[in-house]
């Protein structure tokens, strides 16, 4: 890495030791600098991870009991490759992924729609507020048995669990975004002759996007938890099912293997949300 940095073609722009007129930095040079700092972060992250895994492997290698209790990276890897080989990894991940995605989508659509439209009426939002707080304080897991009675043990019940985990957060964040709009900006649009709907569409919705996306990033995790809790309750496939089964058989490395897949799924979804955010909010990109 160090050698890499020293050999960098654009480092001449950054490290000017000779006295002379400062050269303006080329856009290529800037891009390189940015790439270099991203790379440095990435390398540090990998080093930390590798150190952690090495420590884990070493500690559990010394002691059979510890290896049983905590698994070990090599055992986890063994189970992962076995799960790839027998196809269960892909099947479980795609099942849970689908449940999560559907719950995430439905929950955020409903929550955001309600949250934004509450902006329309101060009266309705005041009426609704205590109910939202009450619903938000229910632990979703407590609903799982009812959900299974209502929706059965198939896909729908997991999607429902996932949706419920997401919807209140999405509602609250989007409502916060909508009501946080600068009143002077609303006044400006009114003096330009805008109707309430025009103010909503041209000002309130785009102004709330930042908060909506903050909510989206937050609810990726919630949607996944909802789906997995649903699978814990009753299921025949999915990562939650795999975790539950391996756990009840005390195969701890297999639990971790399924967890690795869960984490990968969460990272993938978060990354996708980030990309969509960049696409939908290009003015934020130009800011940097």
């Amino acid at each position: 890495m160090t050698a890499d940095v020293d050999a960098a073609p654009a480092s001449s722009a950054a490290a000017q030791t000779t006295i002379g007129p400062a050269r303006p930095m080329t856009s290529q040079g800037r891009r390189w600098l940015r790439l270099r700092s991203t790379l440095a972060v990435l390398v540090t992250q990998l080093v930390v991870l590798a150190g952690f895994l090495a420590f884990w492997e070493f500690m559990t290698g010394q002691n059979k009991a510890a290896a049983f209790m905590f698994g070990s990276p090599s055992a986890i890897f063994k189970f992962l490759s076995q799960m790839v080989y027998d196809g269960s990894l892909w099947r479980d991940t795609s099942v849970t992924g689908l449940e999560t995605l559907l719950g995430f989508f439905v929950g955020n659509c409903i929550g955001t729609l309600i949250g934004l439209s509450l902006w329309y009426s101060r009266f309705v939002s005041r009426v609704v507020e205590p109910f939202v707080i009450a619903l938000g304080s229910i632990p979703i897991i407590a609903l799982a048995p009812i959900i299974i009675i209502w929706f059965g043990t198939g896909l729908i019940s997991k999607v429902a669990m996932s949706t419920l985990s997401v919807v209140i957060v999405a509602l609250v964040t989007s409502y916060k975004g909508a009501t946080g709009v600068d009143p002077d900006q609303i006044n400006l649009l009114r003096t330009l002759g805008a109707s309430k709907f025009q103010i909503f569409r041209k000002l309130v919705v785009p102004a709330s996007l930042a908060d909506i996306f903050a909510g989206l990033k937050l609810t990726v995790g919630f949607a996944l938890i909802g789906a997995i809790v649903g699978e814990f309750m009753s299921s025949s496939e999915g990562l939650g099912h795999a975790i539950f089964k391996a756990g009840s058989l005390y195969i701890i490395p297999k639990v971790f293997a399924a967890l690795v897949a869960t984490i990968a799924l969460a990272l993938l979804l978060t990354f996708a949300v980030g990309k969509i955010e960049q696409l939908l909010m290009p003015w934020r990109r130009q800011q940097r």
Partner: protein
Amino acid sequence: MIETSLKTQTGTGVAAPAPPLVVEHVAKSYELDGGGIVPVIGDLSLTLREGEIVSIVGPSGCGKTTLLNTLCGLLAPDAGRIRWHGREVAGQPQNVGYMLQKDLLLPWRTALGNTMLGLEIRGMPWAQAEDRCRAMLDQLGLHGFADHYPTTLSGGMRQRVALARTLVNEPDVLLLDEPFAALDFQSKLLIENDTVGLVRQGRRSLLLITHDIEEAVSLADRVIVLSKRPTQIKAVYDIALGADRHDVISVRQAPGFSDHVRSIWADLDVVLQ
């Protein structure tokens, strides 16, 4: 009353048409959450004639912003009448441009997109609106910046975009609340000059609220000094400087300019120290 509005509509009456803005005995107070009442505007009457620039100065917190918001229908007056072109309107008057110290640009719209806001709301065809807005941005010295987002523009440029957004709707009357207060002296002079040029050229009327007495005198035909809260008109100055009123920079050298500034200073009772 009926007679006046008829004349305004047909525009063929012998008498002059009604002035763009007439304010008669307006009063406004705020209700506090605790139940108290803060009287802000005591009793205020003024007339803004066609093509006239009037500046309003007054002590901080005397109710200038409140007055402006009341005039353009964002707040309802407690008493009195506000007539636009001879008629009382419910809600927001048409053809009135409103601009604050904050540029209030929408960060997700480019300079062009922000300028198009008013025309878009009125439903003007896109291509036509874009042409007009680009021309307006060019006229205000923003050529080549139409597709920039506000975050990449300087404070002066942002305020110019806000001005373009206001002027492109061709308002008869502009209500400006300390629009240039946040700018450095040089940008301020230049943008003042452009504003006055465009206002006088289009025979528009301008009501300008400012803290800057020199700005008030150099731009306006008339300066109204307000008293402390509850505010009333304390003094009115007709600014007859004889100079070319399109050029706010040379006006500052005109004989009589500093006399006006000094007497308004005295009226404001600013206690130094």
